[in-house]
């Protein structure tokens, strides 16, 4: 290893200046994001003020001002889609946090074989959401499906269909998402638990603090930043949820599970109302961006405590 020789003055490094290295290292990422993310985003914003239709390239494009936005915010359907999205995001995250944190606390007891079990538990989140959606339609099938069979084994629920029922469908997607992503929250919580130094608990023991007290005043506050980070990522992912739900319910029955992204796809690639769908995309993005911004500021405050 490097040993600083005594007497040798600290000199500036050879080669490129730090400033140059920093720019060389950071700019490719920024350029890539500008080219394939920001440029299309600006294009989407431009399109949202026009009557452009992507399936009719020859049609003259007319600037329509905020007409698309007016129509969007004036339609009642939009609120329904946003409500469906909020229900999905809120409940799936709630269950994932409860189960994920619970599992992490249990696994942190470090019983024999906990690493192998952890690996096993992680598997669902490794799967492709679209493929998960497809095979859960099979699991939810009223007759051949294993889900109904198991439920009926324990309680006499009779014949029901998770995906086809207006009341059950919103929960069917929450359940699948919870099944998939609880391990994600668990893994991040586990990281948080392991970051707590032993001496804090030792000090608490010396002070004769009860286990419950230790949980509330040591464990929870120290895991909180990790948990909040997990929630941030899950919330963003679920807010733009498309693949799993589109394969599972395709937004049905009716439009009960038509989440924002599914509606967006319908408008943009089935009805080809590009201008209108672009306006919706902009509204969605501003919402997530705004909420995410506030949340990160809040998260940083919690971290600094």
């Amino acid at each position, binding site marked *: 290893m490097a040993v600083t020789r005594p007497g040798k003055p600290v000199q500036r*490094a050879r080669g*490129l200046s730090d400033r140059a290295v920093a720019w060389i*290292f950071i700019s490719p990422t920024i350029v890539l994001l500008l080219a394939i993310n920001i440029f299309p985003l600006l294009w*989407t914003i431009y*399109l949202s003020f026009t009557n452009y239709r992507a399936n009719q390239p020859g049609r003259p494009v007319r600037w329509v001002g905020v007409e698309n936005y007016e129509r969007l915010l004036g339609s009642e359907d939009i609120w329904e889609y946003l409500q469906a999205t909020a229900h999905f995001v809120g409940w799936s995250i709630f269950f994932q946090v409860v189960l994920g944190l619970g599992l992490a606390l249990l696994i942190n007891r470090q019983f024999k074989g906990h690493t192998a079990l952890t690996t096993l538990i992680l598997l669902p989140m490794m799967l492709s959401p*679209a493929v998960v959606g497809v095979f859960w339609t099979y699991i939810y099938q009223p007759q051949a499906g294993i889900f109904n069979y198991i439920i009926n084994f324990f309680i006499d629920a009779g014949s029901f269909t998770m995906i086809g029922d207006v009341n059950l469908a919103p929960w069917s997607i929450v359940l699948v998402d919870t099944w998939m992503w609880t391990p994600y929250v668990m893994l991040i919580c*586990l990281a948080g638990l392991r970051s707590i130094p032993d001496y804090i608990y030792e000090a608490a023991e010396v002070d004769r603090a009860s286990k419950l007290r230790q949980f509330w005043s040591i464990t929870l506050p120290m895991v909180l930043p990790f948990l909040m980070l997990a929630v941030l990522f899950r919330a963003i992912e679920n807010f733009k949820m498309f693949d799993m739900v589109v394969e599972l319910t395709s937004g049905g029955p009716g439009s009960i599970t038509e989440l924002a992204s599914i509606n967006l796809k319908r408008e*943009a690639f089935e009805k080809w109302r590009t201008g209108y769908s672009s306006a919706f995309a902009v509204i969605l993005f501003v919402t997530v961006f705004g909420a995410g911004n506030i949340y990160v500021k809040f998260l940083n405050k919690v971290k600094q405590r």
Partner: protein
Amino acid sequence: MSGPSTRSVLEPSPWSQRLAALLVIVYALITMIPLVWIVLTGLKTPPDAIAYPPKVFFEPSLEGYVNLFTARSRQAPEYMASLPPPTSWYDELVRKRNMVITGPSRFAERYLNSVIIGFGSTFLAVFLGTIAAYGFSRFKVPLKDDLLFFILSTRMMPPIAVAVPIFLMYRVLGLSDTHLGMILLYTMVNVSLAVWLLKGFIDEIPMEYEEAALVDGYSRMQAFWKVVLPQAKTGIAATAIFCLIFAWNEYAFALLLTSGEAQTAPPFIPIIIGEGGLDWPAVGAGTTLFLLPIVFFTVLLRKHLLRGITFGAVRK
């Protein structure tokens, strides 16, 4: 075994450990049911797959796998009778259903596309992510927090929201439905995750090592390659796995922007149509094959994955 004086006050009691183990095992068993079920379905015959009540015990068959990899057509019984005897086991399996194999399906092609695009984009994203994360971790960058937030915010965009402009842009550039186009696209999506994850890992590496190297006459680049990279390799591996999983599983862009050449497996699996609906054994077989590499990578790097996520890898 050992007396109470040697046991740490922090170590959970054996009783609570056993209870915790039991609860976690119950969770694992429940959560495994859907997975095991779909893998089993891949080994069923189509009638077994839609039997009521669901069949837990059945005679395994490779029909699902044969259906996954072949295209078949139904023939009249007279025509079937006129054929020469089957030349292979899979030929025989298909003929039992009064069908003949007309050629390979596109599954193998789609799978290969997933491999090429998955690894290509992972390599690029991790490369870009590592150097950018180093840049953010070690240097004074103007508007650093804003740039980092900008990078994160690119992930907030629903893919469908930018799909139309990307489609139009790719058409002009000749990138639509190409491997390169999809690799660049997935790199763009993954690089934000890579930067954020890797910045965490690199932040944990003590700066003293590099400073010592710099004092010893290394250039910044040399210090980065010879001192920082080796220490960050666990973090890089964990990040790579996350990126690979994302690219491997991505569906929305693949569905909307590819059709023939560069389409990956996820949009293909849901459209494996059998007679009267989806061919469930073939879907099960496709899902199983699609999941296998991910299981392999997860198990291979499970310790690093956990350590990586716990930020413990780079801490001494």
